[in-house]
């Protein structure tokens, strides 16, 4: 059974039909990539799934539950985490604190409990702290724990964003261009990290422009162009697909 | 309510409404060019009146008004050049805070220059006892001056923005500042010009309404709020909307006296402002997408 089902999803902005009747599935523990030229509607699709944008029509189902048009914090509660193309780390907090926020959905101390600092919240706070440190260590950035999150190098910020998303213990992880702005070595590291995450049992849906990364790690690829899905299949199939080649390289004279 | 009474309220409402509309247009000019809301807008009106009153002591009224408008426009330019241009972190919050600070300081300076006495310019034609009979309602000739001057300002600005080079450059800035700069428009100067223009029309409004409402050092604040309410009602940046909005709020305010104690008259515009903000912040004529995008 699919973990994510997108059915006939539609979204327009004025005259621009950004996402046009898109349907696809993601299988559990799969790494699925969504590719397409700029303006194909990939980020809009992500925003629709993650609840950051409302759809005009269509359905999104997560583990059988309808999540269409749920606000993003509710989508997060369902078990879907996402990263952002332009890394939205919290500038006013340290790396550790950024990751600790990731634990928000899995914990429950409320506003009043926060004011009062009841003893029963002490255990939860300790756990949040420990789990966050664990994640930071697992991803190899332990020494950066107390650094100001936005003062780090780009590649390190990406890793922090990963840690933060993983702290949510999601079942589905939406990665929005994780390799953007990274060099070859950093991209290879990201590929490793993504595989590690999948081995932990997390399904991954990724938007990416970096074809080497996509071909390297994806189990399946969906191709969008001008809002429509034009191809879907294994990496080798997509590489040979004429439609796909056309939209990336332009028409060849017959 | 008799027809004459209704007409009286309506005329009174439209009169004040035109002043609110002028203030609102002042907001719109600066907002369109810069995206800033200038909270000190009301003070321009107050300064216009006050300066003209002082000048009037030793020069004829028309000259006093003319000079006062010139001086207040330079105050507007000064505010932009010294304060707005030098903001280190020009976020919306910071600009709001700076203009609030400026409005406070201007008010206090006015208090120290002119003290808290209520003053007014003499009536442009006639005096406080002259009145004109319009279908049974009695109005002061000054009312016609207010309406006339307001109409001239609106028409003048329409012409300015449509047919003159500086006007079109300012519109270019508001549409797309980078493109405007690439076409050779000096954006910084356009901003200063927008401040000067807003200040000038505010000052004109301040002088023409002075005999009716009197002028006082703290008169700017309530005008600022009401003018803002009008600007929002009409759709921020939309000056036709400002005129309609001004008339609506002015008339509602005037009619409210027949229902509520007059002490609450000032609260009408504010209550309306809150209502609009809660229901449709883009106002009567604005588009909700534009108002959502133009946050920062």
């Amino acid at each position, binding site marked *: 059974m699919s973990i994510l089902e997108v059915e006939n999803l539609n979204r327009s902005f004025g005259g621009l039909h950004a996402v046009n009747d898109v349907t696809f599935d993601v299988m559990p523990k799969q790494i699925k990539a969504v590719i397409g030229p700029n303006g194909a509607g990939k980020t809009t699709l992500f925003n629709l799934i*993650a609840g950051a944008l409302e759809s005009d029509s269509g359905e999104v189902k997560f583990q059988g539950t309808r999540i269409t048009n749920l*606000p*993003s*914090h509710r989508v*997060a509660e369902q078990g879907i*985490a*996402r990263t*952002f193309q332009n890394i*939205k*780390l*919290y*500038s006013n*907090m340290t790396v550790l604190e950024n990751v600790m*926020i*990731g634990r*928000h959905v899995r*914990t429950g*101390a409320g*506003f009043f*409990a*926060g*004011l009062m*600092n009841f003893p029963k*919240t002490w255990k939860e*706070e300790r756990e949040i702290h420990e789990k966050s440190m664990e994640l930071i260590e697992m991803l190899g950035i332990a020494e950066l724990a107390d650094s100001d999150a936005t003062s780090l190098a780009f590649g390190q910020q990406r890793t922090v964003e990963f840690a*933060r998303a993983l702290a*949510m213990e999601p079942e589905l992880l939406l990665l929005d261009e994780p390799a953007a702005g990274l060099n070859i070595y950093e991209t290879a590291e990201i590929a490793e990290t993504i595989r590690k995450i999948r081995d932990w049992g997390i399904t991954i849906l990724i938007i990416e422009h970096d074809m080497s990364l996509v071909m390297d790690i994806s189990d399946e690829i969906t191709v969008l162009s001008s809002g429509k899905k034009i191809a879907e299949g294994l990496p080798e199939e997509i590489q040979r697909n004429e439609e796909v080649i056309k939209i990336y390289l332009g028409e060849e004279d017959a | 309510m008799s027809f004459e009474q209704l007409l009286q309220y309506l005329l009174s409402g439209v009169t004040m409404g035109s002043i609110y509309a002028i203030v609102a247009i002042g907001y719109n000019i600066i907002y369109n060019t810069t995206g800033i*809301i200038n909270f000190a807008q009301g003070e321009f009106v107050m300064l216009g009146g006050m300066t003209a009153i002082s000048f009037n002591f030793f020069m004829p009224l028309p000259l006093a008004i003319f000079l006062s408008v010139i001086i207040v426009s330079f105050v507007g330019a000064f505010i932009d050049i010294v304060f707005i241009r030098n*903001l*280190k*972190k020009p*976020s*919306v*919050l*910071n*600009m*709001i*805070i*700076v203009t609030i*600070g*400026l409005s406070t*300081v201007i*008010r*206090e*300076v006015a208090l*120290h220059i002119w003290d808290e006495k209520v003053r007014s310019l003499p009536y442009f034609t006639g005096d406080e006892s002259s009145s004109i009979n319009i279908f049974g309602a009695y109005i002061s000739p000054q009312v016609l001056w207010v309406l006339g001057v307001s109409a001239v300002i609106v028409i003048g600005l329409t012409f300015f923005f449509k047919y003159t080079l500086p006007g079109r450059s300012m519109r270019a800035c508001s549409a797309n500042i980078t493109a405007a700069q690439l076409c050779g428009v000096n954006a910084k100067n356009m901003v200063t010009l927008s401040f000067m223009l807003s200040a000038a029309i505010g000052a004109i409004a301040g002088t023409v309404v002075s005999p009716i409402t009197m002028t006082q050092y703290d008169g700017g*604040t309530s005008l600022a*709020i009401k003018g803002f309410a009008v600007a*929002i009602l009409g759709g921020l940046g939309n000056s036709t909307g400002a005129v309609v909005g001004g008339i609506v709020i002015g008339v509602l305010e005037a009619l409210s006296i027949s229902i509520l104690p007059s*002490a*609450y008259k*000032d*609260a009408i515009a504010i*209550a309306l*402002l*809150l209502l609009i*903000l*809660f229901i449709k*912040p883009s106002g009567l004529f604005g588009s909700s997408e534009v108002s959502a995008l133009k*946050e920062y």
Partner: protein
Amino acid sequence: MKISHKYVPVIILLGGVILFQLISTLSGIEYILTQMTMAGYYAMVIIGLTMLMGYTGQISLGHAGFFAIGGYTSAVLTTQNLAALKGTGLADFIMNSGLSVSMTDTYGQELVYLSPWISLTLAILITIIVAFLIGIPILKLKGHYLAMATLGFGTIIYRIVLGAGIFGEADGISEVPAFPVLGGLSISGDSALRIENYYIAWFVLGVGVLLLINLVNSRAGRALRSIHGSEDAASAMGVDTARYKLAIFVLSAVYAAVGGVLLTHFNGGIGPSEASIMKSVRYVAIVAVGGMANLWGALIMGVLLNFLSLRGYFGSYDDAFFGVILIVIMLFFPDGLLTRDNFKGLKQKIQRLIAREKRTAE
């Protein structure tokens, strides 16, 4: 019992408060404590506002309105002489259930009024309701729309207290009775209780600060700070931003109201100027100077500036001074004066100066 390091500044504050009182008593300038007491209550408004403005980036130009709601509610409720109403249902109920306080006034007449503890509770409840109702639509707005809406709210409160007979119109409400706290202690302007009142005020403020420190370091506090850092990312992490913004708005309103109630009893009265826009602007100026997200900066600045203002050091330029502060801060120190960055920069400058001195000495 190990005391968490986050509470250390509170202990330092406590020490400072005690020290200040001892010094002022010994130097015979004890009357200064009155202004410090008032500054303490005003600081309640300011620390609440810092949380709202600094940690969630929402501006409020109408917070004096909540101060006024608190103060006026308590003033109105405690200035109804129940003794005169003996025989009517509600008055008897209040007096018989121990919810009232008796005293004799200067003419030997019996004065019975509603217990200020009850009026405090009611004031807080009313504030919560109003903040809730206003907050829901207001917090959907952004930028200058939000600012103007809060300004509008503050102005409406001002117009109401200025215009309504029950609130004393321009004269406000006076003869507000003392607030009995414990045993013989009460919050009032009685100069015999000056030192006690000073400690009461700073105790209340201390508790207020303590609660906020707890909040900042808690899960909810992180959620709030994440909203300020990036609202989109916060949402994506499961933070219900609308709910949290509302919660902090209501909390900051309650802080302001509590300050209003207690100060009103201390002063024995309240007037419409407490609800004025200038007061709201003043609070915003102080938060801006202290550094928006800087609880301690806001506290220090709040007490300092209010104290100076109350002792008349700004003379008739009072409002202008705060206006100038706003301008100067936004131009030169948009993140506030007492921020970590500024201190670091200052430290560096001093170090460089010392290094230069050393070199010239060689």
